[in-house]
């Protein structure tokens, strides 16, 4: 297949992951459990929107059809979004949000560290910027998981409930698309398969310290990169895209 089209799909997929998670995190703004945590969640959201912008801008240039980053983010429908499903799940409660964050933080710390060595210099620069942010996010999400798992009966119950849902969505983080494999063979993309063992080890060790068993779920829900989503994404996009749909071309 055409390398340019592959690169475009790859960039948009990563950008969609970021923008969707960013929007979810931003839904905590003014709803955080306390002020400092509210600010922290919003700041993490800001890092992800920045990451999404760098990737969309690059994708728009690669596509070369005069579309802007905003056109790609705000004017595509649910089926055209290709984010991995874990990013789009609703925020639920704080335990769910933090467990998802911990899972993706562990993933991105390793994924982006490898993407820093991409033969595509622009992609490597974006990864170098982003990996530092993810490392900082992990410094915050990891102690929270320990605190919630070893806190009260109620906080432990919530972590276990979150785990029962999220374990069905983590597998997709490690699935390679055919076009992604071609990019990885050329040194542009990262082979996600290779990250699974390290990720499992890291997560199982941390949860194990709090006596929580984490095993591979039999049910692995997939489809994000093909535009097949959970029922939640459409609702989220209707909120996220409302302004640009109602007032086309509106600018700050």
């Amino acid at each position, binding site marked *: 297949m055409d390398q340019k089209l592959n690169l475009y799909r790859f960039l948009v997929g990563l950008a969609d992951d970021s923008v969707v998670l960013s929007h979810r995190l931003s839904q905590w703004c003014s709803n955080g459990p306390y002020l*400092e*945590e509210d*600010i*922290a969640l919003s*700041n*993490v959201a*800001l*890092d*992800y*929107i*920045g*990451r999404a*912008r*760098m990737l969309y801008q690059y994708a728009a240039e690669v596509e070369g059809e005069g579309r802007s980053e905003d056109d790609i983010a705000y004017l595509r429908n649910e089926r055209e979004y290709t984010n991995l499903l874990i990013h789009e799940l609703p925020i639920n409660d704080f335990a769910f949000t933090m467990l998802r964050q911990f899972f993706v933080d562990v993933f991105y710390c390793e994924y982006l560290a490898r993407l820093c060595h991409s033969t595509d*210099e*622009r992609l*490597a*620069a*974006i990864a*170098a*910027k*982003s990996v*530092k*942010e993810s490392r*900082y996010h992990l*410094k*915050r999400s990891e102690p929270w998981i320990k605190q919630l798992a070893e806190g009260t009966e109620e906080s432990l119950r919530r972590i276990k409930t979150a785990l029962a849902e999220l374990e069905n969505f983590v597998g997709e983080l490690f699935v390679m698309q055919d076009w992604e494999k071609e990019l990885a063979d050329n040194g542009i993309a990262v082979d996600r398969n290779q990250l699974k063992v390290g990720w499992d080890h890291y997560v199982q060790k941390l949860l194990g310290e709090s006596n929580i068993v984490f095993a591979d779920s039999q049910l692995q829900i997939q489809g994000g990169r093909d535009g097949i989503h959970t029922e939640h994404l459409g609702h989220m996009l209707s909120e996220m895209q409302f302004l640009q749909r109602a007032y086309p071309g509106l600018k700050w």
Partner: protein
Amino acid sequence: MTTKNSQVDPSGKLIPTYTPEFAERQARRQKSSCGKIWDLLDQVHDPELPGLSIWDLGVLQNIKPLNGGWEIEVTPTYSGCPAVETINEDILKVLKNAGVGEVKVTLVLAPAWTTEMISPAGKSHLKRIHIAPPDVNDEVLCPVCDSNDTRLVSQFGSTACKALYQCLACHEHFDYFKHF
């Protein structure tokens, strides 16, 4: 107290150290043929850090002549930092008022910004406005009383680049500019 990012002068005052990253930027500025433009841009400050210039912060990376005008290369601190837009507008405003011809602001991502790019003067300035300057080992000293008896209150403070701390000696709450 001497940390990797600062030294003590004979009077006992902390002086921020001169990092290789800053030395490289300084050499670039000194060798540059666009001296007056660098000087003009010393007026442009980060909107969230009162009095700290984009030069001292490390956001201003390079200036190049471009078709009779100038290309200004800036790098964002954090990828989602909303101050970038304001900084770009301020650069254009200052250079337009100075009448130096066409100006183009370009965002560069590599090398990724790090707090090591902040000038020694910039670190001193942060301390003066009661923001603890970044430290390699995240050893946070109170910017008011220099005590190292401080505690982390929140990993994010008033902006993405800062964390909130409290000094347990003088009880002051303050922002720490995170080592990044």
